C-alpha cells in the first residue's frame, strides 16, 4: 500500500519502431483504484507490465513511495497481479496456488494456513481448495487468481483485463465484487481494461490512453462529462457521442451551422470560441443529452436549443429507447428513457442540452468547450 509514481515512462519495441508507451506521467495515490482505459494496442498493458517489473522501461522512472523500483525484478517489488488468462497453475491444487506467494516468502506454516483460509473465505471458494484448476469453471478460476493476489498484502495490486474472459453475466457480478474487495482492503490498485463500463463503474479515477499517450486522468464523471479530446469523448459512453461537422458563425449572435441545423450558442461561449469564428469545428452531443420534444423532457437543464429531424429508426432497449434521427445528411442517436413508439418517417423537434454540448478543434481534435 504505497503511492505509485510514473515519470516520463517510455517503452519502445522493435528498436524504437513501435512506441508502445511514449512518455507517461501519472501518480496513483495510496489506496486508490485507478483504471487504465484504452483500445487494444494503446499501451495500457505495457504500462502495467512495467509497473510489475515484467517489462523494463526504455526510459523514465517508476517509484513506489520514495523508492525507485524502475529496474527491480518483479519478485522484489512486493506486488500482486491478476492476469487476463488468470494464470492459475494447473499442476497445483487451489490451496497450493493461493499459498504459493506465502510459501515463497517463507511464512510460517500456520500463518500460511490462516491467510489462505481468510482469502478463500473472502472470495467464497473455501469448498474448492482441494480441487485442481482443470475442475473449475472460468469464474471460479478467476476467484482463485484474485485470492492468490490478495493473500500477501501487496504494495500494489495489478489487474490486466481480469474480467474479459468471463461471460457478460458473471462480468457484471465480479465487477461489483472486485470493487467491494478493493474498498475493503484499501490496496493501491491499477486495473487495465478496454471496457468503458468497467472503467466508469469501478475506478476512483480513470486514465484514458491512446497510441502510447495518456490523454486524460480524472474521476469517471469528469471524464464522461468533460472529455478533453475527441478520442476520450467518443471512446467513453454507449451509444457513442454524436459527432457532426459544423461551422462557427457570428451573425447578430453566435451560431453553430451544419448540414440541416443551426444552433444559437449562449453568449458566454464567445470567449472560448474567439479564434474559431468562421472556422469548421466538430460538434459532439451525447444521446442522453437530447430528447424528442413532446415525448420526453430533459431534467436539470438550464439552457436548450432546438433542431429539426426525421425519425429513421427506433431501437427499443427495454428500459430505454434509442431514436435514430436524420438531421440533414447525418444520423443522430437520441436516448430516451422508457418505451417510445415513434413512427418511422415522422418529423420531430430535437431538444439539446446546451450545457452538455462539446466542440472540438478539427485539426488537433482537442476539446474547445
Amino acid at each position, binding site marked *: 500500500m504505497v503511492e505509485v509514481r510514473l515519470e516520463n515512462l517510455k517503452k519502445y519495441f522493435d528498436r524504437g519502431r513501435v512506441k508502445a508507451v511514449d512518455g507517461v506521467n501519472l501518480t496513483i495515490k495510496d489506496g486508490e483504484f485507478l483504471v487504465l482505459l484504452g483500445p487494444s494496442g494503446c499501451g495500457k498493458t505495457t504500462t502495467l507490465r512495467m509497473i510489475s517489473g515484467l517489462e523494463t522501461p526504455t526510459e523514465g522512472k517508476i517509484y513506489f513511495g520514495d523508492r525507485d523500483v524502475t529496474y527491480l*525484478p518483479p*519478485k522484489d517489488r512486493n506486488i500482486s497481479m491478476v*492476469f487476463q*488468462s488468470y494464470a492459475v*497453475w494447473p*499442476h497445483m491444487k487451489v490451496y497450493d496456488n493461493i499459498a504459493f506467494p506465502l510459501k*515463497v516468502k517463507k511464512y510460517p506454516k500456520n500463518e500460511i494456513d490462516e491467510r489462505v483460509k481468510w482469502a478463500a473465505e473472502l472470495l467464497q471458494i473455501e469448498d474448492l481448495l482441494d480441487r485442481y484448476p482443470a475442475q473449475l469453471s472460468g469464474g471460479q478460476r478467476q476467484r482463485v487468481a484474485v485470492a492468490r493476489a490478495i493473500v500477501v498484502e501487496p504494495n500494489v495490486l495489478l489487474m490486466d483485463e481480469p474480467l474479459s474472459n468471463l461471460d457478460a453475466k458473471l462480468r457484471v457480478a465480479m465487477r461489483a465484487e472486485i470493487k467491494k474487495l478493493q474498498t475493503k482492503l484499501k490496496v493501491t490498485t491499477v486495473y487495465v481494461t478496454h471496457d468503458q463500463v468497467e472503467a466508469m463503474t469501478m475506478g476512483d479515477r480513470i486514465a484514458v490512453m491512446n497510441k502510447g499517450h495518456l490523454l486524460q486522468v480524472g474521476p469517471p464523471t469528469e471524464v464522461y462529462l468533460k472529455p478533453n479530446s475527441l478520442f476520450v469523448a467518443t471512446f467513453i459512453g454507449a451509444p457513442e457521442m454524436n459527432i457532426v461537422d459544423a461551422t462557427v458563425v457570428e451573425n447578430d449572435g453566435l451560431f453553430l451551422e451544419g448540414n440541416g441545423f443551426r444552433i444559437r450558442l449562449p453568449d458566454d461561449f464567445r470567449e472560448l470560441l474567439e479564434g474559431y469564428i468562421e472556422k469548421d469545428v466538430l460538434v459532439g452531443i451525447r444521446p442522453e443529452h437530447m430528447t424528442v420534444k413532446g415525448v420526453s423532457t430533459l431534467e436539470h437543464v438550464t439552457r436548450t436549443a432546438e433542431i429539426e429531424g426525421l425519425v429513421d429508426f427506433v431501437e427499443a432497449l427495454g428500459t430505454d429507447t434509442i431514436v435514430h434521427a436524420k438531421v440533414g445528411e447525418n444520423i443522430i442517436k437520441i436516448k430516451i428513457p422508457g418505451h417510445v413508439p415513434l413512427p418511422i418517417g415522422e418529423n420531430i423537434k430535437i431538444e439539446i442540452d446546451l450545457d452538455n454540448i462539446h466542440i472540438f478543434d478539427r485539426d488537433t481534435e482537442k476539446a474547445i468547450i
Partner: protein
Amino acid sequence: WMGLPLVVSTLYAFGTPDDYYNPHRIIPLHFTLETTKMLLFTLGGWEALKNSIIVAILAIIISFALGLPAGYAIARFIFPGKDTIKLGMLALKVFPVPIMAVPLVMLYIRLHLIDTLLGVALAHSAGSLPLVVLITASIFSGTSAELEEAGMVFGLTRFQSFLRITLPLALPGLAAAAMFTFVGSWNEVFAASVLTFSHRTLPALMLTLMETAPDYYKFAAAFIMAFPAMIYVAVAR
C-alpha cells in the same frame, strides 16, 4: 495389419533353424531361445545392444542440453534472425547425411572421437538437435507465458519460475521428444557404421550380419530392434 510383420518376426526369432528351413512349415512350431542367445552372446549382440542404449541416452542428454535452451529462447524471446534459425533447422533435416560422411570421419580422427560411443552419440545428437529445438520450442510456446510470469510476480526469479512452473507442465511433451530422439538414434545405421569398427551399435552390427548370417539370425536381430517400438506403442495406448 501393421502388427503382422512384427508377429511373424517374433515367431521366427524364437523358432528353431530346422523349422525355418522346412518348406512345409510356414509358421514355426518349435520354439527356442538358442538363436537369440547365440546372437546376443557369441556374435556380440549383447555388447551392441548395450552400446546402442548408451549411445541413445548420450544422444538424448547432449541434444537436450543444447536444444532445450534454444527451444525455450525461440518460444519466449524475440530476437533478430529467429526465423532464419527456424528455417535453417528445417533445411538441415532435408540434407542427406552421406554428404557429411567424409569430412566427419576426418574431423573425428583429428579429435580422437573415432570409434567411441561419445562420437556416435554426438553425430546422432547433431541429427536430432533440429527436431529437439523445434519440438521444445513448440512445447514451450504451448505452455502459457503468463503462468511463468505469475511465478515471477509472486516471488521467483525467471529461472526458478521455469523450473517450478514451466518444466513440470512441459514434461509430457519433453518425454515424447526424448522418445523420438531415442528411437532415431536406435534406428540410425549410417553414421554408426561409418564412425565405429569395434564399438558397433545394434543396427550397425545387423548391417554387417545381413550379408553373412543366416536368415533366422536376422529375424532375431529384427525382434530386438523392434523392442523399443513395441514398448512405445504399449505406453502410448
